[in-house]
């Protein structure tokens, strides 16, 4: 687009493993095309150059775990026109949200000799608990093709074409035999957001929910199905408490199985 100012893209990191923002670097073939279409204004993993905000698009990775970060995300929101959260940490608090169900002091005292120096919040929370989010891209980690789709949709002023159905649909499309029906393997696929390409079932394993809950999941019905396959309450509790444990649908379902334990 000659003569037009390129949109500015910024990448921000909070508590996370860096995997989602590295997905952007993994787009080897698309990276240069994206780099040509946008001005990468703030992407510490790739460049020290920082162009001043405001930014047209911000990609936010990671969850909020410190008081400082809880303030910093408001700054990110202020300087961002369109804010996209990427990955399970940013959209659901991530694996570190498992601590939300325990006392954080147990954590610090177990690992560190002088826990009083550790300044951390009790809970690991998703970005949307703190500021308005314009688009959420799920997954642990995100699918790089979905990331490219979201960015190119934005650049071209259209809605991203990201399916909101479950992993089951992906299995059917690939011709993968249902591990739950055919092998009796408990699987989270029926309630999990599509995006991974139904990876685990293609290895004859049950889905373990990396992409978090799909739109309107019927987790209670799935839990009954698991029980019929021999799963016990603690199994259900653990199944819904992994990478997306603090996503509302999974959190509620896990709490149901926790209460029945007592």
């Amino acid at each position, binding site marked *: 687009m000659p003569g037009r100012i390129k949109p500015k893209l910024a990448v*921000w*990191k909070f*508590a*996370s*493993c*860096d*995997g*989602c*923002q*590295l*997905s952007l*670097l*993994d787009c*080897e073939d698309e*990276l240069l095309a994206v*780099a040509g279409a946008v001005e990468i204004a*703030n992407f*510490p*993993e*790739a*460049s*020290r*150059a*920082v162009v001043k905000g405001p930014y047209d698009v911000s990609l936010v990775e990671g969850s909020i*775990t*410190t008081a*400082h970060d809880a303030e*910093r995300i408001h700054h990110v929101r202020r300087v961002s026109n369109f804010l996209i959260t990427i990955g399970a940490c940013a959209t659901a608090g*991530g*694996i*570190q949200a*498992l*601590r939300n169900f*325990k006392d*954080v002091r147990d*954590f*610090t005292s*177990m*690992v*560190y*000799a*002088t826990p009083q*120096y550790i*300044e*951390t919040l009790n809970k690991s929370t998703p970005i949307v608990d703190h500021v308005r989010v314009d688009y959420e891209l799920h997954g*642990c*980690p995100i699918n*790089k093709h979905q990331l490219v789709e979201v960015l190119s949709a934005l650049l071209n002023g259209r809605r991203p074409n990201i399916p909101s159905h479950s992993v089951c649909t992906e299995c059917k499309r690939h011709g993968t035999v249902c591990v739950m029906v055919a092998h009796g393997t408990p699987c989270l696929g029926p309630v999990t957001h599509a995006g*991974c*390409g139904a*990876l685990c079932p*293609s*290895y*004859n*394993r049950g889905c*373990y929910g*990396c992409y978090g809950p799909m739109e309107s999941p019927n987790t209670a019905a799935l839990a009954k199905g698991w029980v019929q396959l021999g799963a016990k309450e603690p199994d259900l509790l*653990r199944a819904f408490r*992994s*990478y997306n444990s603090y996503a509302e649908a999974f959190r509620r379902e896990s709490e149901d199985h926790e209460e029945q334990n007592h």
Partner: protein
Amino acid sequence: MGRQILIDPVTRLEGHAKITLHLDDEGAVEAAHFHVTQLRGFEKFCEGRRFFEMPYLMSRICGICPVSHLIASAKTCDAILAVSIPETAANLRRVMNLAQIIQSHALSFFYLSSPDLLLGMEADPGERNLFGVAAAHPALAHDGVGLRQFGQQIIESLGGRRIHPGWVVPGGVAEPLTAERRDRILAGIPEALSRVQRTLDWFKRTIESFREEIRTFANFPSMFLGLVGPNGELETYDGKLRLRGETGNLIHDQLDPQRYAEFIGEVSEPWTYMKFPYYKPAGSEHGFYRVGPLARLNIVSRCGTTRADQELAEFREMGRGAVLSSFHYHYARLIEILHGIERIEELLADPKILSKDVRAVAEPNRREGIGVAEAPRGTLIHHYKIDDEGLITWANLIIATGHNNMAMNRGILQAARHYVSGDQISEGMLNRVEAVIRTFDPCLSCSTHAVGQMPMLVQVVARDGTLVRELRRN
């Protein structure tokens, strides 16, 4: 009055890592601290989980080296099952681990460090990045992207995706390798070899211009620790531990990694979340050692592949006995990429790599397991205990970056003493202090993540807390 210089990365590592330099009354650096200030708590929240979930839970520690955690964790589970996994499974895991080392080293060398090496430590920070490299030296940037892609595509081809792949499971791997996938990987080998050879040749030609950095970048005597194969060759998946001293003297060899707790102790400091491991027999004061590419090339008897062994012979001329400057982590990384490519080719050339026998199945036979592998950044130790139900009751992780913690702190002090004096803080000085950290390529997600390419806030603060000077680098 004593003052403190704070190098606080304000974007990516905010709340994660920072550097403080403590000045004495004359403005000379008297102490340097590398702080890690974020907690994710993996060792605690895995309690109560089923042991066989651990490889997938633990791989989430890090998006840069997920495969290392996956493999160390799966090996720990193998120990709990008390099985000897099929040879093909071990070799497939070995291929994946080497691919991981290749892609991670390529990220470190080309994406994070080559801008400093190519464009100079004093270059405009706005241009000192991968895109700057791509503009000034397109062939080199292309080789870097290509090498990382080579490693990542192997991981994807084996494990289904590049970051947090499944596939590696307790007892082996989930699926055998198909001939088609093997051939696709093999087809990429000649190009990958020429890419790394070109880079090595260029690096060796340029090395003379970094004399000052070589002299002052964490260049000091230390011990070196890592895994070696049965004949002392470079081995990153399995093997026994070897410890060499500063003159190349053998301190400990063929040490069973299952006994790590007997010879590795850990101390905590109040100003950082990252613990300080040390070699117990030497005590916490003198027992510090380095791990990672430099350490591995210092401890091995040979790489075990033709071209890497030729390069190793040249590399060894950089030191007497052991190569001591951490600047040469960069050099060692390139040689390890070369070794990784050659070794993958060897492993895939063996027809047995297509065997369908890739998994041993068992119930837990032991209450405790230890799994050790070489991650890109050094020796990685996972250690779990389980109860009767197979639920985790306790976990301990010693991560590669942690082993280097003492060396990094000493290295920053050394570089800061050389380049920093009083209020005279230049951009180039800051780069060098940061670049010392970068030679170790610390993974600070595993303890959080590299002080990579980021803006910095430097504050000179008086002891009473007043701000004397502030330098913001954007």
